[in-house]
């Protein structure tokens, strides 16, 4: 079995808890294929210092190093189990087959990086390349840091990526080092409000099943790479399905924006339009869509035929 070690920098532990919310089928498969040599919240037999020694001496191999939380390019700033995270990473970076940054803090720095320029993600600081490990860093396997973004990352994105690598599949990464299998989708794909989006029927208020949240209520679904509406959260739902706008938490700029519940507009037109279309085309298209009244979409859902 391949070894996995999970360490934490500046984090809320949300990715660990997301990971632990995995369904029991996936958990069983995961645990029977991957040996979790260390996880700070879970392991009871070994302490990190002993695991660390085994890894440094080469007595145990390190196949997957999972990093949760932002790190600091200065020494003595962030600690994990009594060790400086700065040193742990420098000592383990060339010993790991794969390093996975799990969650936006480890990928881009996220909230902890907002007011401290030394706080970074592993290979990025927001959208700038050259995080903690530098732009060109690659692990033994030839992969750069694999970014499983999200605040937090979805448990299935984490588990399925690790299992894919474990089963010997090559994984394709996008230009922000995220596995394409997940991040080629947009949060918009699979949203149950899509019909409203197409016909430009907007929700003016929260608390309704009807209407798309894009035009007024800040939804980032058409601009956010994430399969939230394809691989549902907790196997039940997603933000947009429950009427909350997508806040774009899988993107590098997530904490740089503000007014998450409003759409920034310019003379009534959203400042940012769905990925892949020009603003002009979008304005034309939505203008046309508006001229057709889709009767179905002007009623309460319960009252439609």
């Amino acid at each position, binding site marked *: 079995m391949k070894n996995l070690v999970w360490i934490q920098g500046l984090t809320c532990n949300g990715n660990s808890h997301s990971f632990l919310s*995995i369904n029991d089928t996936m958990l069983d498969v995961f645990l029977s294929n991957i040996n979790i040599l260390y996880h700070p919240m879970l392991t009871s037999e070994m302490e990190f210092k002993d695991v660390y020694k085994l890894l440094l001496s080469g007595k145990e191999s390190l196949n997957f190093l999972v990093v949760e939380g932002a790190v600091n390019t200065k020494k003595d700033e*962030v600690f994990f189990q009594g060790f400086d995270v700065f040193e742990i990473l420098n000592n383990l970076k060339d010993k790991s087959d794969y390093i996975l940054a799990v969650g936006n803090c480890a990928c881009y720095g996220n909230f902890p990086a907002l007011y401290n320029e030394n706080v970074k993600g592993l290979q990025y600081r927001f959208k700038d390349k050259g995080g903690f490990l530098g732009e060109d860093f690659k692990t033994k396997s030839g992969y750069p840091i694999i970014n499983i973004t999200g605040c937090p990352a979805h448990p299935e994105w984490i588990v399925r990526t690790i299992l894919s690598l474990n089963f010997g599949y090559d994984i394709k990464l996008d230009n922000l080092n995220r596995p394409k299998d997940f991040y080629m989708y947009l949060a918009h794909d699979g949203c149950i409000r899509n019909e409203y989006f197409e016909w430009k029927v907007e929700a003016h208020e929260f608390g309704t099943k009807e209407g798309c949240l894009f035009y007024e209520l800040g939804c980032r679904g058409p601009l956010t790479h994430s399969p939230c509406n394809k691989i549902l959260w*907790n196997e039940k739902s997603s933000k947009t399905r429950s009427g909350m706008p997508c806040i774009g938490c899988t993107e590098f700029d997530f904490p740089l924006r503000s007014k998450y519940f409003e759409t920034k507009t310019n003379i009534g037109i959203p400042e940012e339009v769905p990925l892949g279309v020009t603003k002009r085309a979008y304005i034309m298209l939505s203008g046309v869509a508006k001229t057709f009244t889709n009767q179905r979409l002007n009623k309460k859902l319960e009252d439609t035929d």
Partner: protein
Amino acid sequence: MRVQKIVLNRVEGDVNLKLCWDQNGKISDAYVVAYNYRGFERILQGKDLLDALVINPRICGICGHAHLMATVNAIENLYKNSSIDIEITEKAKLIKQITLCSEIVQNHLKWFYLFVIPDFLNFFPSLETEKFKPFVGEKWKKALKFSSEIVKVIAIFGGQWPHTSYAIPGGITSEPLKTDIVDALSIVDRLIKYVEEEIFGMSYEDYLNVKDLEEFLSKSKGGDLTTFIDFCVKTGLDKEGQSYEHFITVSTVYPCINEGVIKKKKCKLNLKKIKEVKDFNILYNKETGYTYANGVRYDGLPMQTGPLARRLTSETELFLNLYRLYKDSYLVRVWARVDEILRILINMKDWLLKINVNEKSYIKPKDYKKLYGEAFGYVEASRGSLIHKVKVEKGVIKSYNIITPTMWNLGSRCNKFKSPAEKAVLGLEDPLKAQMVLRSFDVCSVCLTH
């Protein structure tokens, strides 16, 4: 005097315990040390008020939902303080309470099985205890399965757990169907069965009538709580780990949690008496500081908050009796957390059945950009009382202050008193027991330093 540094695992976040041992081999002083400060209170300054709904859940991965509720609460109180109308339907209130409580159940289940029980594998290695072993034990896996189940209730109403912001000033963003409620009900029902069968070994009706430890043991057909009590009695942890006899609960969750303060006797809560202490926080005091966390005092006194405090301020007979005999020992503190799982689940079922889907989910309040002044948000989180205080000018945050439950229990000391957790390990002779007693406070350094 010998000084020993221990790094804790199986807690939330990264915490060190510095122990001072006297000549007789007993702990004479203890320091709970937390690093990894992220500065959320600073991050919030100057931000748009509603951004706090998105930022604050990220303070903590395990009780982020409680931080969301405290934020919403504070903002709704801002409206009230400014005499601007804000109306919230009974339906929205019930659903928020249900999701908040789902998070508490999730926490207690994980904490008992993943953090607490594995310590006993060191004392009693046997086939029986192997069931609780991380990653392989069937009991360990089951607890994880059911903690993942209960957060589905949050997902049904709020889209996901962790880190949704579906609760907003004026209500909630979702409009659940009757069948969604049935979905949630079936999850809660299944959990109640699991808890009855595996943890308590008796029906919930029987458990709610139990008045003391003997009665519990005689009625239980042998659940994990029985095993746990047995472990505690054998190791002396039924009596060890006591701290100050002061408890605080700042908000009421009708009908299962009542607010109040206990200083020798129960008295009325006066929120004005709450003060933060910073004398031993490195951020404010380079010389004396030893941790990145503040402490909190009520009327100058350290207080314990959390499930045991909630049981005592709610005057639950079983816990009044346990407390009389065993004080706030390791056993009683842990039992109170486990007890709460069932008490809350029973009420959740009731609240789910009370939801009237025809009511509105959300009533749009007046523009928040008109808001000025300051307000508090009080919420019961898994680990105890959580307080947010926001100051606002024209809908922009001027300052934001957060007092987390762990700051009450494990925050820095003041000149007169150690924190309740630091006090609770004094006199112990075994470093493992010191760690266990600390864990009985449900340590979360993430919230502690935020």
